[in-house]
């Protein structure tokens, strides 16, 4: 695989994680109960964080 293809794959994984995380966060955004908060913190934020980290990794992983 070429360098740019590897980057593209990382970016794609990051996009999926970020989207999944934002989707979960959006689902419980209006919830006024502890369960909504827990899902936000224990599922939404970790997914988004993972996505952002994968994206950052894609920036530094491949030297051009």
């Amino acid at each position, binding site marked *: 695989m070429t360098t740019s293809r590897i980057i593209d*794959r990382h970016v794609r994984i990051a996009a999926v994680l970020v989207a999944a995380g934002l989707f979960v966060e959006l689902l419980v955004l209006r919830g006024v109960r502890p369960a909504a908060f827990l899902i936000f913190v224990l599922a939404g934020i970790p997914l988004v964080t993972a996505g952002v980290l994968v994206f950052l990794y894609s920036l530094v992983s491949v030297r051009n």
Partner: protein
Amino acid sequence: MITPDTLPLLLFLLGLGLAAVFFVRPTTATREGKILAFVGLFLFPLLCSAVGFSAHMEHSKTTTFCLSCHIMESFGKSLYVDDSHYIAAAHFQHHRVPADEACYTCHTDYVLYGGIRAKWRGMRHVYVQYLGKPPAPAAIQLYTPYNNRECLHCHLGARSFEESATHTAIHDDIVSNQVSCISSGCHDTVHNVASLANVKFWKGAP
């Protein structure tokens, strides 16, 4: 229309849209692509999460939030007792505490970072509720005895408080928390959930 209510929603939809773009076309080769990726996969996700988190922090102060756990139901009911000796009821019904943040207004600590401490206690409640053994509502106790500081946050210096002969006589002991505001014989009826079966309720009761 954009209101404080719909703004977070809009942010999230934009964020999702941007992420979708990079799923379909994960090209970051161009300069524009790089910038857009930074916005879509870094700035927006973090911004949305921060906005969402602060929304949840606001929600956690609401009366609705506190009463969303079944175990707090009788405390919610105690706000509607038709007897002004019930301190929580007397404050709630006359909006002496904001009705939509009634519990939080009395149960936060009025010190630096008191709000954070209150939320941390809330996490402990969540833990007990889901993973521990929740007590019977009437057996629930505060972690530490109610501190006069919370009452005095509103009442100290107020004419109705300062002009009462009883308060004047033991003013220092009240302020230093030596004598509790809710001592027996003083304002000792707060929620009294064990006795709610025998009281009258105000019309607004749920």
